[in-house]
């Protein structure tokens, strides 16, 4: 181990570049609001000298002899709110001279009808609130400015989920905005125990992050650890939840996802109620759920909507599919190349017959067709939708049929590859499906080298790897070990709702009882 560290130190350059902690280039430290609105405007213009989407609007109230400066960022503010809550009240008040003189405090107290109004003299705070879409009101003669809550921008409508279809589930999916997403959760969990913690990540992006859990149910150690990890993130900026996921995950070198990213509202609600933690990142419709186990990726919200017997059956089919999609090509290769004695004789004859005159050994055939499949899947995702149809025709008909007729591959390979493709679509979570590919190809290789023994050892290594994964104190395979009747109720099978009286033990929840 020491040797390894020494080697590492050799490689890594110790002279790390200094981290730029300075927020904005033109901002001066501790800059305060000036009495003169023109000076304030000058300073702001200096700060935003390269951005021309800042709006400066001077307003004069003649009767009160007041000069005001309104500043905001175009597109982030709701113009209707500004008119209704700032301009109209001020002008109306100005028209009637009988009332008292307008001062900063009267304006704040009486005039502005907006919900959120705040006083501040710190320019850093003012500038930050500009980015949030708030409007700043400077008044001549005062050393403080008003921050008026006017944020409002175009958002995508709530649509039905695109990546995880269900039959009977809710049709709502999350959108990019944190506010809307919080509403979606609040509307369904009506308890003061629902904790929504606010965090920020990224020096330049200032991305909003929310931790959502039920306090008193979710294990507080897990919450603390997640919070600590997010607070420790020191980065320029994050684009979406995927980066946050990678920055807080426990095992970096594994193909298996450590958090479950979902856009389904019902899935997040179910997980929160189970005692898990949801991490919401502004700008991504995918909410991260943690801690997560292997079985979570093979569950679909539909399991909870259908009859328990049928959904148990579907679960079993998913487990079998998972096995097939990872191992079937390898199994075919091992059986035909190493142990033809295990297959019934008529089938061996058929296989041999179909392989007469083919140029490549089985392993090359398997590789050719599996690669073609991966290319097709990737192409169909990337292409614009109208052309996507062409890909499926080209892929399905031309390559499959033609490859057989041209005598490059045997028809049995086509069946095997088609089955792996089909079974991979059974897995409900896309990120997890991706990891299957990284298992399938190594398994084909070891099956080519060592036959059935290779497959078994490959799976053994895979199992050891899976068993060693641990995130936030929960093992990836803890559903299966130690044996417990309670965890069996929602893994391979799903028992009726009335029998699921406890929350999953593996999450170490603080309140295990779910129902009586």
């Amino acid at each position, binding site marked *: 181990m020491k040797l390894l560290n020494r080697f590492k130190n050799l490689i890594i350059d110790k002279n790390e570049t200094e981290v730029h902690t300075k927020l904005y280039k033109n901002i001066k430290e501790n800059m305060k609001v000036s009495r003169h609105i023109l000076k304030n405007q000058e300073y702001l213009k200096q700060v935003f000298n390269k951005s021309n989407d800042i709006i400066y609007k001077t307003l004069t109230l003649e009767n009160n002899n007041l000069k005001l400066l309104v500043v905001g960022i175009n597109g982030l503010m709701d113009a209707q709110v500004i008119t209704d809550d700032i301009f109209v009240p001020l002008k109306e008040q100005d028209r009637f001279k009988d009332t008292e003189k307008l001062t900063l405090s009267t304006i704040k107290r009486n005039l502005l009808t907006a919900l959120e109004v705040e006083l501040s003299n710190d320019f850093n705070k003012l500038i930050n609130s500009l980015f949030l879409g708030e409007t700043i009101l400077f008044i001549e003669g005062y050393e403080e400015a008003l921050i008026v809550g006017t944020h409002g921008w175009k958002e995508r409508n709530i649509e039905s989920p695109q990546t995880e279809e269900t039959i009977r589930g809710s049709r709502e999916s999350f959108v990019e905005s944190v506010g809307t997403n919080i509403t979606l959760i609040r509307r369904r969990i009506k308890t003061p125990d629902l904790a929504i913690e606010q965090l920020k990540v990224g020096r330049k992006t200032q991305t909003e992050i929310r931790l959502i859990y039920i306090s008193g149910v979710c294990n507080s150690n897990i919450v603390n650890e997640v919070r600590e990890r997010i607070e420790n993130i020191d980065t320029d900026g994050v684009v979406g939840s995927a980066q946050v996921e990678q920055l807080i995950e426990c095992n970096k070198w594994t193909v298996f996802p450590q958090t479950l990213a979902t856009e389904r509202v019902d899935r997040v609600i179910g997980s929160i109620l189970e005692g898990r933690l949801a991490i919401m990142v502004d700008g991504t419709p995918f909410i991260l759920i943690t801690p997560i186990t292997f079985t979570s990726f093979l569950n679909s919200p539909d399991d909870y909507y259908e009859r328990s017997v049928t959904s148990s059956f579907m679960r079993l089919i998913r487990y079998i599919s998972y096995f097939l999609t990872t191992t079937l090509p390898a199994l075919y290769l091992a059986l035909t190349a*190493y*142990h033809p004695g295990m297959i019934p004789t008529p089938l061996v004859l058929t296989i041999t017959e179909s392989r007469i005159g083919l140029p490549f050994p089985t392993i090359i055939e398997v590789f050719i067709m599996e690669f073609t499949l991966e290319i097709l899947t990737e192409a169909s995702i990337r292409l614009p939708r109208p052309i996507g149809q062409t890909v499926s025709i080209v892929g399905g008909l031309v390559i499959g049929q033609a490859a057989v007729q041209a005598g490059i591959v045997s028809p049995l390979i086509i069946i095997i590859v088609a089955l792996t493709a089909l079974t991979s679509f059974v897995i409900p979570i896309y990120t997890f499906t991706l990891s299957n590919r990284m298992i399938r190809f190594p398994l084909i290789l070891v099956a080519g080298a*060592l036959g059935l023994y290779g497959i078994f050892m490959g799976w053994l290594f895979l199992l050891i790897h899976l*068993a060693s994964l641990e995130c936030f104190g929960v093992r990836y395979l803890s559903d299966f*070990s130690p044996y417990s009747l309670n965890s069996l109720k929602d893994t391979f099978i799903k028992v009726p709702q009335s029998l699921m009286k406890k929350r999953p033990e593996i999450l170490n929840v603080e309140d295990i009882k779910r129902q009586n």
Partner: protein
Amino acid sequence: MNKQLESINIIAFIINGVLSIRLLTLPREIGEHAKNNGWMSVLLMGAYIFFVGYVFFWVGTKHKDLTFSQICEKVLGKFIGKIVILGIGVYTIVSVGLGLRIFGDAIQIYLLDKTPLIVTMSIMLLACSYCILKGVKTISIILDILLPLILVSIIILIILSFSNIDIMNLRPVFHGGITPVAKGALEIADPFLTVGIIGYILPFFKDFKKMKKWIFISISICIVIYMIVVLICILSFGSEELNFLLFPTITLAKSIRMEVKILERAESLFMAAWVPITFTTLLLFYLASTLNLKALFNTKKDYFLILSQIPLFFIIALYPSNISEVFKFMGWNEKIGQILIFVIVPVMMIAQLIRERRVKAK
């Protein structure tokens, strides 16, 4: 030591440890002595094993944070303790080495006839050391997952072989009296000694609630499985034929012909089921050996100990030139095992009792 195991985990440790690759050869080895009464040998030894398992557990509960080797040193004194630890060390290391060799040979005969022995063996050893490096919790999860697969495959084998049994093979019952039965029982002492893993993993458990029950259940399961396998081998082949079969249990699987032809021959599939069985046994021996060496050298360097054993295993595994020599070495190793199980275990119990008396007297 960090305590992270629940008491129910012990089931997987015991059953996976006791059901070993010896299941393949044991019916012949017992049959050599006990002939058609081999199944009684299993029962005889089984009764003693309950006692052994209880001693390991009882001694373990007296010293909650110590492994069996450390307890040996504490209870028997430094000098005798070290000798016993050395004995356990030789036994465990040789067991891993020879177990690896038998496994490699069986794979060569039934699955991969052209792959060199060292390749199959090193992959298996690599998996074991990888698993041990990942810690006890990982080991227990792996054992818990593999156990149902192993049990199901053995049960399928048993059910399928019901078709070619001949009840006449069991006669004459008790021919030759109790002596051959007892001699056969000695043969099975070696695989059953693996219950000693209790002594090495107890320090990793959070509490010992219901532990006695789980230990009792798991030892019973092992005895029943061994008995049925031996019984079925005798019933299918007869005790005379049994003597000429190198791996009677594989031959048993080979003799199965399924009525509905899904698979042409079932034995390769069962051979594949032996992979996890061997893996778990080797893994547990490896674990015990590592913990034992830790006690021997009074050290905490896990990584070093785990990795430094690998060459040793290879030397032992590759030293015998053919399979009969392997069985010869195994016979010697079994002698050490028999000393451990029939001498050391009772001695430990008595020593512990005396120690307690003394503490009480003071």
